[in-house]
């Protein structure tokens, strides 16, 4: 049995609405809009009686229906006899009406025009850049203070971060670097074997791992692993008022949270980059000895002669910078986190995307600079 509502005309000016049946969220019931249309069609109506009989079950569906009818009648100055409304329903309707309306403007933005939209985007980019440069400025100042011995970091915290970003990252860095070396070698062997120049596989793998792939892959892994962890940790601290607690205890969040992470990552990234490069070369070696007639000695000798000190230092310099970018962006995004769990997730995602984009852009800039100087 579903919910039933019937409009019956008693006279030209008076009608009765009979309500019966089961009115809950699981059963069918007449829609308030359709019923209001029925009432509207009787233009001569002046009074409506509400009658309830055989009402078995009701819940908020009936309350909602009645509120719509009552509001409509009120707007049309129709008199409604509500005496028959069951006491429970009547109380809930009255409660919904007496609930105070806060004098707050809606936080939902009104739809903006194209010009406003472009302006908002421009403003957003400007503010974002301003915040980023402001943060980087403060961070650089703290690094200088640290270098001059004026700022201190907690050694215990630093040791934990160092372990997290260094030793604990080795397995994933090893796996990815080995596979990258493997892929470069495979592609190279396919092409070079056509010219009988298999020996140059060692050159290609060695130079690309040392100069580019080692630091880029490590940077990307650290952005997804460590940068995201920084953003999530600091974001959660923001949600839990821990950052406010730091400030009201007189500690600078940059000094306390950001500096140890940035220093740890800048310190560990070159080591991870060198490690990644060697593992990548090892991956190339595996392909070379199994799919060509090269020996281990030939491959190693060729690699040693192909890589020069410049390649090594290019990788090191870039990895330091990428480490700085990943740590700084992760921490900055964490500190910008608002106070909800959803924002922590958003912050983490933004941190990873921004870090990877920044790494690629920085690598392109480095490529131009190094080529200008002939490095």
């Amino acid at each position, binding site marked *: 049995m579903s919910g039933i509502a019937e409009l019956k005309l008693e006279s030209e000016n008076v009608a009765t609405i009979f309500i019966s049946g089961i009115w809950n969220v699981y059963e069918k019931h007449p829609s308030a809009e359709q019923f209001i249309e029925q009432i509207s069609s009787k233009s001569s109506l002046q009074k409506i009686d509400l009658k309830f009989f055989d009402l078995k079950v009701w819940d908020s569906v009936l309350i909602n229906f009645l509120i719509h009818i009552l509001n409509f009648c009120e707007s049309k100055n129709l008199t409604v006899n509500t005496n028959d409304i069951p006491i429970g329903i009547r109380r809930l309707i009255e409660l919904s009406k007496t609930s105070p309306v*806060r004098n707050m403007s809606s936080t939902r933005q009104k739809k903006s025009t194209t010009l406003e939209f472009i302006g908002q985007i421009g403003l957003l980019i400007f503010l974002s850049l301003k915040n980023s440069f402001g943060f980087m400025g403060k961070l650089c100042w703290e690094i200088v203070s640290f270098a001059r011995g004026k700022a201190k970091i907690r050694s215990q915290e630093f040791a934990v971060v160092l372990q997290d970003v260094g030793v604990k990252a080795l397995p994933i860095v090893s796996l990815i670097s080995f596979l990258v070396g493997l892929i470069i070698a495979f592609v190279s062997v396919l092409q070079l074997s056509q010219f009988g120049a298999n020996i140059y596989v060692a050159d290609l793998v060695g130079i690309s791992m040392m100069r580019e792939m080692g630091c880029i892959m490590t940077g990307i892994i650290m952005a997804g692993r460590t940068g995201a962890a920084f953003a999530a940790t600091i974001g959660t601290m923001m949600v839990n*008022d821990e950052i*406010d607690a730091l400030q009201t205890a007189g500690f600078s969040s940059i000094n306390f949270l950001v500096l140890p992470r940035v220093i740890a990552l800048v310190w560990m990234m070159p080591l991870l980059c060198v490690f990644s490069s060697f593992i990548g070369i090892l991956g190339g070696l595996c392909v070379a000895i199994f799919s060509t007639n090269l020996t281990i000695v030939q491959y190693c000798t060729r690699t040693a002669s192909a890589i020069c000190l410049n390649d090594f230092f290019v990788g090191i310099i870039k990895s330091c910078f990428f480490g700085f970018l990943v740590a700084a962006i992760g921490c900055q995004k964490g500190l910008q986190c608002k106070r909800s769990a959803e924002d922590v997730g958003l912050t983490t995602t933004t941190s990873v995307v921004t870090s990877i984009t920044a790494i690629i852009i920085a690598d392109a800039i480095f490529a131009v600079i190094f080529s200008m100087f002939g490095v």
Partner: protein
Amino acid sequence: MVPKISVKNLDMSYDNYVVMRDLSFDVQQGEIFLIIGQSGCGKSTLLKYLLGLKRVSRQKIFYDGKDINSVINGSHFYGKKIGVLYQGGALWSSMTLAENVALPLETYTPLDKKEIEEIVALKLSLVGLKGFENFYPSQISGGMQKRAGLARAIALDPEILFFDEPSAGLDSVSAKRLDDLILELKESLGITVVIVTHDLASIFAIGTRAVYLDVESKTITATGSPHELLATSNDKNVIAFLSRGTKNS
């Protein structure tokens, strides 16, 4: 006598929306001052202004007669001058309870390690957490985290203690115990206490004076002791807010 804290014609906004306007009140030395009002009226936002976590223009908030903007840059405003207990305790999750309490002591005092350990044990025992020194915040209950947060807030025996909804999330026994502790700290240390709350039992049990932030008129509509407000206020919102407490208590 110069008030401990003085707020003059302060307008508060949140995300460009005006939350409260023209707030003015004084907090005297040694009193337990309550900021009360319905949920969402801006009590916690006001606390942020008082703590200097939200920027405020000059000549709006004063500590001992000095503008907050000049005071917060002083070396000992945070830590020595004020202590704060946040709603959830806000303990630093990477540190043990002892480390949480010890950090301000290590940073701001020349005390040696042994003495710091003793003070930490003392503060934790004051809040009933003796023996929990080496626990991490995640290993203890919400109520215990709050008490540990209080131990950290009083680590440096601050002049003013701020509490943000101290009894939120606590059972009535724990809330009563925290109220007693606040009273004890106020009596024994002579500190000034500012509490943001809407817990009626606490309001009547410990409050010396209160301001009521009215969500409809967006300003302070009543000031006085909680009992006085209930007895004499003509404001229907104040009466409605406070009268439930008398029925319950």
